[in-house]
């Protein structure tokens, strides 16, 4: 049991050592530790603030992104609308040009056909005329085959041509 009863002298020295240790720690150890903890707290606070700011910034950026995306979508819609209109306009113009070209081609073809027809008719007319004259020539030669008729004709033409007119 004596072991469980503290000796006053030991107690005294233990208290003294504890006091000295306590003073030393209070003087040098604890301030350093608490300072360190405070600095860490500050850093953590700062990091937390920065993270909040970043979050805030991120949120802002997200908003901006949304806005930009919205604008882009609107712009895209507008461009699509414009391009649709332009496409329709171009199609319309191309159609008109094609119709115009077609009409021109049609007119030209009609004119060419008309000329062809006229040329063919003219050709036929010329052939008929040529044939008629050839026939007339043959008939005349046949009719003038007898020498007397030829002489009569010459005689008459001499009178008609050379006789002074009254």
């Amino acid at each position: 049991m004596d072991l469980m009863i503290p000796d006053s002298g030991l107690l005294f020295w233990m208290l003294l050592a504890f006091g000295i240790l306590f003073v030393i720690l209070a003087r040098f150890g604890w301030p350093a530790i608490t300072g360190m903890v405070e600095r860490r707290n500050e850093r953590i606070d700062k990091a937390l603030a920065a993270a909040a700011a970043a979050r805030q910034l991120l949120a802002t950026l997200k908003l901006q992104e949304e806005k930009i995306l919205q604008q882009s979508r609107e712009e895209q819609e507008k461009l699509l609308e414009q391009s649709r209109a332009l496409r329709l306009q171009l199609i319309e113009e191309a159609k008109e040009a094609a119709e115009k070209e077609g009409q021109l081609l049609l007119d030209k073809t009609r004119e060419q056909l008309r000329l062809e027809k006229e040329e063919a008719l003219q050709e036929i007319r010329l052939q008929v005329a040529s044939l008629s004259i050839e026939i007339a020539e043959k008939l005349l030669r046949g009719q003038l085959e007898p020498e007397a008729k030829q002489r009569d004709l010459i005689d008459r033409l001499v009178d008609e041509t050379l006789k002074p007119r009254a």
Partner: protein
Amino acid sequence: MNEGLIASRYAGALLQYAIEHHADTDLYHMMKQVADCYLNVPDLGRTFGNWTLDTEKRKALFLDLFPGYNPQSLDVLSNFLDLLIRQRRENAMHSVSLQYADKYRDRHGILYGVFTTTLPPDDGLLEKIRNLLNPGNPEKVELEWKEDPDLIGGFTLTLGMNEWDASLRTRLREVGKSYGLKEFY
């Protein structure tokens, strides 16, 4: 110098020379025949102008054409050919013959015409034409006849700068033209 002018001068000189020797009419007939020969014999001019041939042989080309003519007229022609050969003007002979005939006709007031038909005209018709062309002096009209079967019928008459075309070929050609035929005959 101009060939035509040279020929004209030679023709004028030949006419004067022929008149002096009373051979102008004979020479007129000779020159007409010479002109015809030049048209019908393409090598005549080249042969007559060939200096390598003997002069007499070249002269004989023409002199042999007129065997029945008065010797005095033949002398005139011979002397003229001598002159041409001496002067080296053989190439002017064709023009001289034509211009001699023109000058002779001018001098004698002869109207010269070419009458073309498909068959030879009878004397009565020629006489009628002469009378129509020169009623006061029909014997001064000289008509040369040419045959052209292409006329079909009728006649053409050329007299100096005048031309009468009463041929059926021309009538048919005019009909063809009126139908738009560009080339017919």
